[in-house]
């Protein structure tokens, strides 16, 4: 029952929001209230999974291999909790930073449908159902991306829609082939039935089709070009939620499928993933270093850090997977926060272009601190969360004697620091050039009512500050988070518990 809440609550919120189409205030209230309810229930789910082990719900009371099973092991529960944290932070931020026109066109219901799709993808135990949740999530993200209809948004949306639809088709193809091969789509059942077929050609083909499909969604090395072409186009709140959650659904699917179903390919898949991970880290960060637009730098950094997240999968050791999971926890919070900060900067100076920004350290020291915390965390400066995430991965890499990947990971984190310091130097440190053209545009962007302006900065600052505190807490309480990550990795490495939870029916 508990498993249904992370799906039912966003759905209810979205439906009620659609009923309240004409009342913007009601929609705003519902948006935040729904996100808060999701936050509470998802942490309850995490707590109960932590205490009692994996849980499953059989939708419609169908006996296990038939019907759709919702299942939460520790990884799923952690991901759902993170989605809820980001959902809440972004809903709060949206109150202040999303314009009334977008709010009037169903921004909050769409945000909640997106959250429903993300939570559904994390919780489902059925491959076809995973495809459906992907589509739910994509559909909401398509509309959110294009909502507003600015030129850049539409251009970005075309690329985003095309590549994601292509990935979905590949995924569907793989699902079809898998059904033809093993005659089932329940993940646990597939995992059992595919074992005798592990070395056959069709299994390898399916595995690589899935790697490509999820790779596009996760934005790994040769497949990431849609991300930096589209993530900087929508309003900041939308970019932030995309950056935090969407690519991570792809990473989650990779982790799930390649630790549960295709484990017999222990040689090929992890080797390929490891190579892709190195290339993703490098190309992402090299892209970031040359950019000069705030959100594009961040977009390329997302790509680069996806490389770290799949590094653990490439190593395929418990320590490596724990590192990956820790990294995901850290990265979701930090990258969302950086996007939120970019929006706060935009609200003050009316631009994302590093050349036009400047002098914010003098005028808004609080904002500078808010940027510095996630920026340093992203590049792995102790004692923030990024340091421990990287430490775990590096240690796992050294244990597995993969020297080159460790060297690349360390080099890339240095370059990440460089790209973050570029933002710092340009936006906060250098004095602002007073140029009459930008001054004019800033004046026109400042909202007319002083009251609204005050509210803007306050709510936005609060949600960003909350995420910054979370980053610091993950860093300071690294032991505690590590315990979760290690337990989740342990469950991934020994999927028997997951399989038996899914297939053995307890009391409904």
């Amino acid at each position, binding site marked *: 029952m508990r498993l249904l809440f992370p799906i039912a609550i966003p759905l209810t919120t979205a439906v009620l929001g659609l009923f309240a189409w004409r009342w913007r205030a009601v929609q705003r209230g519902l948006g935040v209230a729904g996100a808060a309810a999701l936050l509470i229930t998802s942490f309850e789910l995490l707590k109960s999974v932590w205490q009692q082990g994996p849980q499953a719900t059989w939708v419609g009371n169908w006996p296990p291999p038939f019907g759709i099973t919702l299942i939460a092991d520790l990884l799923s529960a952690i991901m759902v909790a993170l989605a809820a944290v980001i959902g809440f932070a972004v809903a709060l931020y949206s109150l202040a930073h999303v314009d009334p026109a977008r709010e009037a066109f169903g921004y909050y219901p769409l945000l909640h449908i997106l959250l429903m799709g993300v939570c559904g993808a994390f919780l489902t135990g059925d491959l076809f159902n995973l495809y*459906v949740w992907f589509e739910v999530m994509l559909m909401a993200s398509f509309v959110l991306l294009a909502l507003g209809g600015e*030129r850049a948004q539409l*251009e*970005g949306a*075309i690329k985003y*829609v*095309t590549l994601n639809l292509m990935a979905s*088709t590949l995924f569907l193809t793989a699902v*079809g082939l898998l*059904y033809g091969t093993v005659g089932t789509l329940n993940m646990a059942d597939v995992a059992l039935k595919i074992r005798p077929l592990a070395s056959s050609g069709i299994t390898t083909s399916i595995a690589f089709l899935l790697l490509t499909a999820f790779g596009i969604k996760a934005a790994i090395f040769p497949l990431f070009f849609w991300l930096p072409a589209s993530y900087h186009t929508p309003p900041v709140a939308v970019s932030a939620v995309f950056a935090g959650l969407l690519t991570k659904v792809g990473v989650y699917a990779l982790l799930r499928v390649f630790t549960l179903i295709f484990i017999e390919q222990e040689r090929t898949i992890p080797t390929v993933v490891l190579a892709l991970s190195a290339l993703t880290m490098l190309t992402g960060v090299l892209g970031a270093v040359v950019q000069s637009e705030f959100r594009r730098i961040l977009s390329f950094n997302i790509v680069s850090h996806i490389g770290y997240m799949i590094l653990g999968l490439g190593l395929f050791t418990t320590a490596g997977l724990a590192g990956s999971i820790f990294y995901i926890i850290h990265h979701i919070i930090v990258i969302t926060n950086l996007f939120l900060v970019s929006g706060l900067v935009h609200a003050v100076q009316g631009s994302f272009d590093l050349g036009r920004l400047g002098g914010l350290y003098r005028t808004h020291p609080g904002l500078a601190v808010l940027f510095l915390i996630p920026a340093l965390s992203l590049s792995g400066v102790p004692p923030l969360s990024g340091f421990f995430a990287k430490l775990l991965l590096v240690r796992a890499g050294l244990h597995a004697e993969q020297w080159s990947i460790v060297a690349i990971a360390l080099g890339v984190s240095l370059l990440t620091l460089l790209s973050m310091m570029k933002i710092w130097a340009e936006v906060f440190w250098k004095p602002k050039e007073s140029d009459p053209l930008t001054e004019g545009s800033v004046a026109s962007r400042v909202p007319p009512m002083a009251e609204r302006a005050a509210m803007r900065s306050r709510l936005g600052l609060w949600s960003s500050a909350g995420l910054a505190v979370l980053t610091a807490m993950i860093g300071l309480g690294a032991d505690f988070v590590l315990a979760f990550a290690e337990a989740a990795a342990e469950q991934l490495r020994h999927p028997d518990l997951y399989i038996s939870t899914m297939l053995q029916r307890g009391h409904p």
Partner: protein
Amino acid sequence: MELLLAIVIGSLYATGLYMLLRRSVVKLIIGLGLLSNGSNLLIFTIGRLVRGRPPIVPEGESSVPSPFADPLPQALILTAIVISFGVLAFALVLIHRAYQKVGTDDLDDLKTTDM
């Protein structure tokens, strides 16, 4: 029958991918449509083609005698068709809006958000 369908599916994937690589936005959408139809047919074919054997349990027996027509792939395809229909409808509106805003249907001109 399987051979024929295999050839059809192969051509759908091939033409779909070819259309995706063209410069016109409209052809891009056609390509996506062909691809999704190809994958639907693939699921249909790979679920084994059986004629005239509905999956109905005969009286006095507890299971369906095989071979029987598997209903599950058809349910999957139905879902996939609905989804791809919705998504393609959205994509059509999107390219229409983009055309109105940008004034071109050439993908090579839609690169202001790239590098």
